[in-house]
């Protein structure tokens, strides 16, 4: 039967919509293949050109080749009538009748799509990672497009949490784009599935992206757009999702940022404003949980040396580079470096390429100024 599905999907000029009409009339592709010209003509579904194509193109050679290739490459095929084919997607008329995939497709589960800019900022990255962390904890399937940027982060964060993940590709499932994601793709295949409507071996083309975006939008129950510039591909995904009745959320962003234009516009038109991950699960929790200050580890300042405390108070105001700290404190450089290192190992601060930033917040009793109160501990004990 599979071979007739492939045959049907490969006929020129007959897309998903027409195919589905034919399937409705003839029940399965085998019947379509066997039907004679008059039968098909009487169904009054196809125009003259399509009719000509379907009645003359009876060779199954290409389909056989594809099936053999898929077997060799461990690529699986599911069709429109399959149970694994998401119910919601089946309702979308333009969804393809045949999908190629690698990995495992789990039966129905809540799927949330996360898409966004390839060239994203740190803001977009942390929104994505935080959201995915929350969703995977709640056993939500993450759906994305394996592109650079937001998509890649969504997949990676999900894999790091051992979540289940589906990636929709704009090329055959046997190739990888972008190339730096090849390890990621292998891991997705192990822990989820990569799905594509394109024949194995298909390269990337502009029109493929749009088709992929459509398929992605049909497969997710809700869609979150994290960052999108004015003409981002993520916006087409959002539009398709809106058209097929999927709830679209967009993360609000700085209005001066280039990456905000698309998402903020979405909010202006039809998307819901995305403020916290629990929203996606239908729970409204206070937004306070987003505030990173509250996620800081509580730090007992009495365990800090006076120098460490001095540094900590400095960087609480703003991220500072080591050089800036040394300039501001004007104490022995070696001790400052040592203090930064100790605090970082202790998880109080983080030393990054942008500079040093705090991770924890100081717990102090009311009315006491930390630092003055603390006795001088041995700088090397207490950690």
């Amino acid at each position, binding site marked *: 039967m599979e071979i007739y599905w492939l045959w049907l999907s490969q006929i020129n000029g007959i897309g998903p919509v027409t195919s589905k009409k034919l399937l409705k009339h003839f029940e399965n592709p085998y019947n379509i293949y066997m039907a004679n010209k008059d039968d098909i003509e009487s169904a009054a579904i196809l125009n003259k050109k399509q009719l000509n194509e379907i009645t003359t193109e009876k060779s199954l050679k290409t389909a056989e080749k594809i099936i053999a290739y898929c077997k060799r490459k461990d690529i699986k095929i599911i069709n429109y009538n399959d149970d694994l084919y998401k119910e919601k997607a089946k309702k979308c008329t333009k969804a393809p009748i045949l999908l190629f995939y690698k990995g495992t497709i789990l039966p129905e589960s809540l799927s949330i799509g996360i898409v966004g800019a390839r*060239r994203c900022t740190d803001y977009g990255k942390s929104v994505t990672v935080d959201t995915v962390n929350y969703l995977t904890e709640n056993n939500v399937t993450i759906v994305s497009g394996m592109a650079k940027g937001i998509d890649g982060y969504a997949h990676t964060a999900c894999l790091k949490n051992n979540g289940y993940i589906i990636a929709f590709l704009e090329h055959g499932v046997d190739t990888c784009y972008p190339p730096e994601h090849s390890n990621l793709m292998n891991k997705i295949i192990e822990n989820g599935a990569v799905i594509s409507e394109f024949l194995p071996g298909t390269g990337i083309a502009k029109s493929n992206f749009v088709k992929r975006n459509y398929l992605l939008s049909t497969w997710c129950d809700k869609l979150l757009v994290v960052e999108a510039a004015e003409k981002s591909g993520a916006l087409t995904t959002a539009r398709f999702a809106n058209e097929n009745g999927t709830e679209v959320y967009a993360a609000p962003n700085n209005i001066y940022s280039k990456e905000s234009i698309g998402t903020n516009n979405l909010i202006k038109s039809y998307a819901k404003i995305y403020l916290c991950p629990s929203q996606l699960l239908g729970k409204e929790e206070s937004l306070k949980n987003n505030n990173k200050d509250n996620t800081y580890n509580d730090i007992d300042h009495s365990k800090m040396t006076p120098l460490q405390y001095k540094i900590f108070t400095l960087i609480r105001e703003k991220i500072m580079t080591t050089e800036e700290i040394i300039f501001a404190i004007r104490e022995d450089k070696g001790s400052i470096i040592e203090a930064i290192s100790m605090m970082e190992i202790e998880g109080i601060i983080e030393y990054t390429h942008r500079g040093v930033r705090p991770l924890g917040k100081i717990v102090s009793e009311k009315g006491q100024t930390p630092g003055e109160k603390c006795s001088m501990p041995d700088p090397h004990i207490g950690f």
Partner: protein
Amino acid sequence: MASVVNSFSLAGIDAYQVKIETDTIYGQPSINIVGLGDTAVKEAKERLEAAINNAKYDFPKMKIVINLSPSDMKKRGSHFDLGMAIGLLIRSNQITVNDIESFGFIGELSLNADLRPCSGILPMVVAAKNSGIHNIVLPLQNIEEASLVKDINIFGFETLKEVINFLEDVDPYTAKLSNNENEKIRRTNLLDFEDVKGQDGIIEFILVAAAGGHNMLMTGTPGCGKSMIAKRIPTILPSMSEEEALEVTKIYSVAGLLKDKGALIKERPFRAPHHNASMNSLIGGGNNALPGEISLAHNGVLFLDEIAEFNKRNLDSLRQPLEDGKVTISRVRYTHTYPSNFMLISAMNSCPCGYRGTNKCRCTDYEVLKYREKISGPILDRIDIQKYIQPVDFIDISNNCHGVSSKELKEKVESARKIQNQRFQNIDGINCNSQMTTSHIKEFCALDNEAIALLKKAFDRFNFSARSYHKFLKLSRTFADMDNSKDIRIPHVAKALMCRDLDKEHSKMITIG
């Protein structure tokens, strides 16, 4: 009977004695130079004829055969001219020299019979001394380089006629000053760490790199001062010993980079090849198997700017020299071993666009990793220190801040090196902490329990690889040496843990490796 005159030929950075045998035979007038000479040697016959005529001697109208013995080794260069001319004049009985065996001749002849300077003088004079030749005759311009070798008589002349007069005892030798005195104004150190302002933190790590001989990788945005810092590193390295200086001078002499300077190279070399450098230019080779950049940086600093842009294959060719401190160049005709004990300082942008850490950058973590993977693991493994260089707000900081002078830093480095020299005095091939092997690390880098606990905690937090464990120990040792502390204590380990910025960053990246 054929006349025999001594000269020398180069092989690698060493030279060996060559006997120039000259004979004249009755036959059609011709001149043949045999003994595997290159084109410069072959062409000597034209120079010889003109020079001898212009010096008012007769060029014999006979069949002349000149043999450079040993005849089975390839020879190159124009410095055999003088020896050949003297040999020919002796053979044709135009001059007589007593005790010709005690002389060695080096020098190129001009058509007017003037002597021209040559390269590779230093190794040749050393070879002369080793083979028991007491007197060396060479061009005046090379006299300074030659006098670096003690206990041998050096005679510098400007023309062939002067040489002959001296050999025939017509004129006694008068020491003349070389006429390239004005070219001798040595490059004084214009660079100083004082110019690097507001980067005190990173200088602390540069100091450690210099003190322990650790290789270093700096990353940062364009214009943050990576190159500026790198160029100043030689100014804080300890002064070279006489032996080291001679070795460096020899290499430069062989490479022909010494011609005009002549004197001993006392400053540590700094080489900064561009990133399109070929493999031969980096490790040495070419037709004559000459030393490459890594040998020219021997005892000094090799600075690879934009190390990620280097051809991966070329970069990987540095692996063995980095390990062994020498490189062997094998060609069909030659196998030369050049020393290449250098400190590798490299710099690169931290991401493909170069602006990671600023708001401009939109590179994804995967792209950043891929960019950094251009430097292969084995090379990264030989780099102990990786640091971000953070750009400095120069209006705020630079004007209110005094850099530390190179002199001050150098003193610290020298005192740390002193400790290391004592530590490694009985161990062959190891001079500084970075060269320690596993067994030495065990012996010299013992940690107390507290320090081990700290290290363990850091490893848990940052997922450092097992390989970096030894690096941290070595670095801690150097930090302790800088403190003049016998034991490695917590502050030293803590500072050492700040030396692997990129590793730490990788542990926090959102990527699947």
